[in-house]
């Protein structure tokens, strides 16, 4: 009983608190870098696409709104197409969590309104940005075992040069 009355009082007192919301769009709110807004595909520090078309984001997506197709150039895997249907996306960020390469990232931009739904289907060209996004230093191919142009076999982090099979040494 007393609790209930106290609750009522406390709630009523909130009338005199500062507003937590702002008058968007005149006032822009502060959105932290990890805010879950429009999705982008980032690039490696060397400027190449980060996405290796592993499909993990697609399978993690609870609404199944990502689809892509793998292709390969010089041993580097990349998506031939990469499509997100933002009219389905719920901005849960699961895709970003699933991504092993930090390629897919959610950004603090949420102003994506469109009058026609088809405009919410983003292709790779629409998603790809030119920078590294939130993770400036990571490059998947530096840790993966497969060689790419500019990185010989056995030259990844924590790797020894390839074995010489003809060596008789133990």
């Amino acid at each position, binding site marked *: 009983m007393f609790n209930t009355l106290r609750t009522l009082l406390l709630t009523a007192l909130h009338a005199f608190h500062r507003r937590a919301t702002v008058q968007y769009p005149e006032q822009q709110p502060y959105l932290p870098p990890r805010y879950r807004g429009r999705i982008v595909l980032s690039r490696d520090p060397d400027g190449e696409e980060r996405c*290796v*078309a*592993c*499909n*993990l984001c*697609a*399978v993690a*997506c609870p*609404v*199944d*709104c*990502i*689809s*892509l*197709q*793998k*292709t*390969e150039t010089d041993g580097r*895997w990349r998506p031939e197409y990469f*499509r*997100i*249907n933002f*009219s*389905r996306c719920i901005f849960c960020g699961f895709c970003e969590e699933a991504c*092993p*390469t930090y390629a897919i990232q959610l950004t603090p931009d949420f102003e994506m309104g469109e009058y026609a*739904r*088809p405009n*919410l*289907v983003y*292709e790779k060209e629409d998603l790809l940005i030119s920078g590294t996004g939130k993770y400036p230093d990571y490059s*998947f191919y530096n*840790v*993966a*075992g*497969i060689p790419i142009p500019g990185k010989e*076999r*056995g030259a*990844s982090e*924590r*790797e*020894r*040069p*390839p*074995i010489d*099979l003809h*060596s008789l040494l*133990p």
Partner: protein
Amino acid sequence: MTTIRIDGRDCPTRSDINLLQACLEAGANLPYFCWHPELGSVGACRQCAIKQFSGPEDRKGRIVMACMTPVSENAIISIDDPEARDFRAGVIEWMMVNHPHDCPVCEEGSECHLQDMTVMTGHNTRRYRFTKRTHRNQDLGPFVKHEMNRCIACYRCVRFYRDYAGGDDLAAFASHDNVYFGRAEDGTLRNAFSGNLVEICPTGVFTDKPFSAVYTRKWDMRGAPSVCVHCAVGCNTIVNAREETLRRVLNRYNTDINRYVLCDRGRFGHGFINAPTRIRTPLRAIDGQQVPVPMADALTAFARMATQGRIVGIVSPRAALETCFSLHALVGPEHFSTGQTRQEQECTELAHTLLTRHPGALPTLHEMESADAVLVLGEDVCATAPRLGLSLRQSVRQASFHTADNAKVPRWMDAAVRTLGGECPSNLHILTPAPTDLDNVAAETFRAAPDDIARLGFAIAYAIDPFAPPVTDLTPDDAAHAARIAQALMAARKPLVVSGMQYGSPTLMQATASIAAALVRTIPAAGLSLVLPECNSMGLAMLGGLPLETVMEQARAGEISTLVVVENDLTRHLDLADVADLVAAVPNIVVIDHTMTPLCQHASLVLPIATFSESNGTLVNQEGRAQRFFQAVFPPAPIQAGWRWIQALARSLDPSMHPITGLIDWRDLDEALAALAMAFPDLAPAVMAAPEADYRINGEKLRSQTYRASGRTVIRSFVSVRDQPPPASPDTPFSSSMEGAYEPDMPGALVPYYQTPAWNSVQALNRFQSEIGGPMRGGPSGIRLLSPAENQNTEAQPYAYATDIPAPYIPQADTVLVLPDTRLFGSEELSMFSPPITARSSAPTLGLPASATGSGRMVLHLEDGPHDLPVEPVPGLPEGTVLCPTHMVARAFRFPRIARLEGLTDGGERP
């Protein structure tokens, strides 16, 4: 039946297996790597460690390798024992020490046994802080991709490739943790079964190269049970598709046929489906131009043609039974041709007759593996029926199994049995004109012309059963040889005789059937197997029809006004001159096919038909097993199943001309099959090759995607952002999406992919079998149409032996006998449209007896003109014969034939 106790739970099990198998059969999750149901155990990986207790009082137990420990009565074991658990976790941690950080870019990912096992053991954090060893990869040819860093040294690959498949160009190199699995140098893997490394290797070292180019994770693909269309063995496959394109073909376990292994032609031959030669829209010849037209247009055009006179239909042995039958129903039996030459048709029909008349067994491929004496007459099975060849290769091991049984070594103890097998003689006898891949495991090989082989065959039959006709004027050598082989066969418990129509020789097949029948006198289990050329050769032999020669006659007489050619490249059967005649004599040619054939450019109408991956149908393999294939792809509108096209043609006709066969009323595949069963009682059981389209599990259709399939709301959003209902077909019990039932005991004919909780790789198959390596839990896939049960070969009811024994072959001075050189990659029609197979096939050469090779090139004069070909010596090839690649030099199959060879210096005498 014995019982063992696994973690306090009593599990009935079998006594002749090992504990790993027993645990898996009991449904337990026990990780393993080096054991494989088909390869047995070697105990190399140490991953399957469990605790075994000596009795109920034993609290301590000891760690044993489950795969190396036989099941013993009342054995008490524990998988969950902490010590065993730690042991396994340790093993996998060591294995992962050098494993690259590759999963996202690894084709094995999502169906990786190593991933599964790592998760199963709970290893999730890397403690090892030092550097990883790396390896260079090799280019292993167009089929298999190599990524050695991912190897965990389980030795499965080399055991499969060398021990099981008989290859010699893959080996283990180097030592300790540097051990390397590859070839001595870069180069194409030469074995016909190299593609199986993809499934055998538990990691991503060997992956499917053509699939990598169109790669998709397993969870995203639609699967459908299918049947290989590249030879008459009828291996079961799974076709995987995404975005309505076929991505790959995988092995589908059929306990009787292919079991765990598929040949490379079957695995990589599907490329014709997405090849540029594919027909995708109806084409109509308008002013000599082939113009794409809408379906309605094409049908009106056909209706117009039909009013002009007689319609004759030609099918082919590569078309599904339903397609053949629907054309039969459209044109009527008297205008229905099988699309084979008289020779081909006689051979296939003879094969059917011989098999139905055979008094003994008609063994399945799996039964062939346990034949303890095998005789192959005049058939290079490794090229014409590769998977059958592999089964024969396994049969050679029977002796070592018997020795092992005597030595009380379990058969799955692979290394030990193979060591014992080193001393066991082979009992495989090969009589062929040219060398075969099985020669290296044969007890004895004999090279002769087909007629001479047939003579020897009759002699063997006579040596076994004196009621068989004798062969006169046999050389003493041959007589002795015949007696030797007869003895070897008669000493066996389960002899098998194999032949086929590779050399187009009916007498050869008759000789073979005679031997098999003669053996039945004393050994009722004696088996006969005859190899046919195409995936539905047997089905067509049972359907019957006119040979192409009759059609030619009718055409020349001007009796045919419309010719409907379904899935047949006539140039592979008729000489070019004949085809030209046909084109000239028949005003309207309608070609219904999926791939552009030379005839298409002369056709008035070309209709696009669905391939095996896009439609549903039935094929009858060479042992008379009807098997259903299901669609994984839903092709865009004008492309449809053959029988639906023919039905559309029938419906387009003037109602007065409608066939009375009910063709136009069939609503789905089941009705087509029911009509087939009515018309051809012999083929009636084919209805039961798989459950009907209204089959449901718990009221639900069967799903054809994994429950994790992704991209549902986006994959077609570039077409329309609205959600599309998944495509559906009235012909299958499958839903095309992830909705529906899926369980390990679903019917064997309806398993669209293998996956069970915790088992995402193909090894999930273990859960679908009632016992490992045994039948599927949901029952067999396909149904046998032939049963030789009522035949006998006894005094009272003797077998009617063939008596037309051919004369010996005498080499001629001015001509040669041209024999077909059937090639695994190159001779089969459809696979040659598949880029990897084309890359793997080699240019045609002329095989000459080693003694006769003169210059580097020679000219062979065939009916269609001279062919200048490089020459290759073939050791053992009989004098006076040459080997000419089938369908690669002259397109038509016309063997054997006599031809002139220019540059041949010396006709030679027969040695």
